[in-house]
C-alpha cells in the first residue's frame, strides 16, 4: 500500500501533501484523485458541501483510514507507513469529540495524555491543565463529561488536540455546536497557533469562519478538489466589483447600462461589475451622465460567492450557507441582466 521511496523527501515548505488520493467504500467513491498541498505555517481551510470528502481526506491524512490509491506525506514522512513517527507532532479533532460520559473532562484528557509520546510522566498533569485552560474549560474540568453541553464537549475535543506541542493541528468542524463566543475563541486559538508557526488544517462549512481565519483554502466538491491556493488569490479570481455610493442609484444604473456596463442596485448606490471596464471609466461615465458620486470603492468577491460558483453543479450551495448571513440582500427585480444568481449580489463586509 505504501511506497515510501516514491515520495521525495520533505520539500521544506509543505506540512502535508497528497497525490492522487482515492478512497472507495464498497463501490462508492468518497474521494477521487485529491492532490492536496498544505504549506507549512499556513492556516488552510478545507471547504466543501456535506459529503464532499473532507472528513475522509482528513482521516486518510492521519492514517486512520487506508487510502484505496494514492500517496500521503505528512511532515515529510509517508503515511500510513511511518505514521507513528509524525503523529506525536500532530494534534487532531476528527469527527467530533470522543470521550467517555462517566469520567470528568479532566480524567478523559488524562487518559489520552498518557498516550502522548511527547509528554513525560511528570508533565501529564500540567499539560492537561494547560489544555483545559486554553479552551476555557478549567472551571468545568471536574464535571462529568455526561453533563457537558455540546459546546463544552467540542472544546474538550479541541483541548485533546492541543495536549502536546504540535507542528500540525487538524481540526474537523471545530466550531460545531459552539456559541458565538466559543467560535471567537476557536478563532483566537487558531490565530495563536498560527502565530507560533504551527500549521493548521481546518475543515468547516462555515464560510465566514474560513474567511476570517485562513490564509489558504481548499475547496472540495463530490470528492474532487475544485480549487486550492492562497485565500486572496481565490477571492481575486471572482469577478471584481466596484461599489459606487450615490444618492441616485437608479440613474447611475441606467447610465451604466447605456454604456454596456453591468451594474445593479445596492442599498447605498450601485454595484458595478468590473469585468471589461475599469473604475476610472465607470466614474467618468457616471460623472458625464450627471450622477453625483459620493464614494467609490473596490470590493472583493466574498468567499461565499466563490464557493457557490465552484460547487454550483451540486445544485445550490445554499444548504452550506452560514446561518448568520442572510441569503439575498436585495430584491431580485433590480437585476439588470437577470442572469446572476442571488448570492452574487450579496454585499461583502
Amino acid at each position: 500500500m505504501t511506497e515510501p521511496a516514491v515520495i521525495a523527501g520533505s520539500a521544506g515548505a509543505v506540512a502535508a501533501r497528497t497525490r492522487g488520493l482515492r478512497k472507495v467504500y464498497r463501490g462508492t467513491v468518497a474521494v477521487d484523485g485529491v492532490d492536496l498541498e498544505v504549506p507549512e505555517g499556513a492556516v488552510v481551510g478545507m471547504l466543501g458541501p456535506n459529503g464532499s470528502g473532507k472528513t475522509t481526506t482528513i482521516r486518510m491524512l492521519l492514517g486512520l483510514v487506508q487510502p484505496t490509491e494514492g500517496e500521503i506525506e505528512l511532515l515529510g514522512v509517508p503515511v500510513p507507513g511511518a505514521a507513528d513517527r509524525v503523529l506525536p507532532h500532530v494534534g487532531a479533532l476528527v469527527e467530533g469529540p470522543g470521550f467517555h460520559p462517566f469520567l470528568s473532562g479532566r480524567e478523559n484528557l488524562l487518559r489520552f495524555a498518557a498516550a502522548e509520546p511527547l509528554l513525560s510522566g511528570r508533565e501529564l498533569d500540567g499539560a492537561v491543565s494547560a489544555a483545559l485552560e486554553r479552551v476555557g474549560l478549567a472551571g468545568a474540568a471536574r464535571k462529568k463529561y455526561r453533563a457537558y453541553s455540546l459546546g463544552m464537549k467540542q472544546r474538550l475535543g479541541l483541548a485533546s488536540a492541543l495536549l502536546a506541542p504540535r507542528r500540525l493541528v487538524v481540526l474537523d468542524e471545530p466550531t460545531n455546536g459552539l456559541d458565538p463566543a466559543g467560535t471567537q475563541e476557536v478563532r483566537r486559538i487558531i490565530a495563536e497557533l498560527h502565530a507560533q508557526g504551527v500549521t493548521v488544517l481546518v475543515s468547516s462549512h462555515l464560510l465566514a469562519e474560513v474567511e476570517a481565519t485562513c490564509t489558504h483554502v481548499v475547496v472540495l466538491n463530490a470528492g474532487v478538489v475544485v480549487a486550492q491556493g492562497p485565500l486572496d488569490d481565490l477571492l481575486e479570481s471572482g469577478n471584481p466589483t466596484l461599489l459606487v455610493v450615490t444618492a441616485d442609484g437608479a440613474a447611475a444604473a441606467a447610465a451604466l447600462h447605456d454604456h454596456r456596463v453591468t451594474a445593479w442596485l445596492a442599498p447605498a448606490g450601485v454595484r458595478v461589475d468590473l469585468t471589461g471596464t475599469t473604475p476610472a471609466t465607470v466614474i467618468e461615465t457616471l460623472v458625464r451622465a450627471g450622477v453625483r458620486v459620493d464614494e467609490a470603492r473596490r470590493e472583493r468577491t466574498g468567499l461565499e460567492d466563490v464557493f457557490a460558483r465552484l460547487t454550483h453543479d451540486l445544485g445550490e450551495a445554499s444548504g452550506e450557507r452560514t446561518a448568520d448571513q442572510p441569503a439575498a440582500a436585495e430584491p431580485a427585480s433590480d437585476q439588470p441582466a437577470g442572469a446572476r444568481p442571488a448570492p452574487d449580489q450579496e454585499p461583502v463586509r
Partner: protein
Amino acid sequence: MTAQATVATQEPAPDRLRAPVGRLLRAELRWIFRRPRTLVVLGLLTVLPVITGVAVDLTANGGAAPATGGPGPDGPGGEPPIFVTMATSAFVLPLGSLMTLLMLLLPLTVAMAAGDALAGEQSHGALRGWLLAPVARGRLLVVKAVGVLVVALVAATLVVASGFVTGLVLAGADNLASMSGTELSLGEVLGRLVVAIAWATLYLMAVGAVALAISASTEHPMLVVVSVLGGLIVSGVLLQISALDWLHPYLLPQSLGSLVDLIRDPVATGGLGEGAFRALCYLVIGMSLAYARLTTRDG
C-alpha cells in the same frame, strides 16, 4: 499555559515515539475500574458465594456434611453430589462457587469488559484518540487484552476469596475435607485455590480473546456480550448431544468439569491440563483474529 510553553521549548528526544506501556496500562485500568458497571458486576460476583454459603448453611442446618457426601461422577454432569454436599467448607464453597459462576456469569463479565475495550471505545469515538496519539494498533491490543485479563483475574479472585472467607466464618478452619475423604491443611487448600484462580483466569481469558476479536469487528459492545452468551449456550447444548462426541474436545466449556478434580485428593491433573491447553488454543486463535481485525480496521 506555562507548562505548555516549557514543553514546547525543549526538543523532544528523537527516539521518544511511543508512550511507555506502563503508563498506558495504568490509564486503561483506571478507566476500567472507574466504570460503574464494572464495579457493580464485581460486587455482585463477590456477594453470590456469600448468599450460596448462607443459604446452604441454613438448609443443611450446620456444616457437617461435606466429607460424607461421597464423590460425584466425572464430567460436567457430576455437579449434583458436590452441590448438595458443598455445604459451607472453606475449601469446597469457593471452588463450587467458582465452578457455578464459570458457566455463565464470569464469562459474561469478561465479555462485557472485552466489549467495552474496543467496540465500546469505538462507539464513543474514543478509539481514534488512542490511534492519533499515536498508540500502534498492536500495542493497543496488548493494553486492551491486559485490561481484560485483569478483570478476569480480579473477578475469579473475588469469587474464590469471598467463598473462602464465607466458608471460614460458617464452618471454621478445621473442616477442610477433600471429596476423596482426606483432610487437607489450610496451606494445601490455599495452594489449590490459587491454582483454581489461575486456571479459571486462563479459561476466562480464552473467552476474553474471542470476545476481543468480536469487539474489534463491531462498534456495539452489546453484540459482543450477546455473541459470547450465544456461543456458550450453543456449546452447552452441543455438549449434551452424544452423537457429536467428536466435536466435544473442540468446545471450550468441555473443560469446566475438570475443575472438580481440584477437590479430589490427590489432584487428577489430566483434565485440568487438557482444559488449560484447550483454553490456550482459543486464546491464541482469538488474539490472532483480534489483531488481524484491529490492524485493518478504519479508525
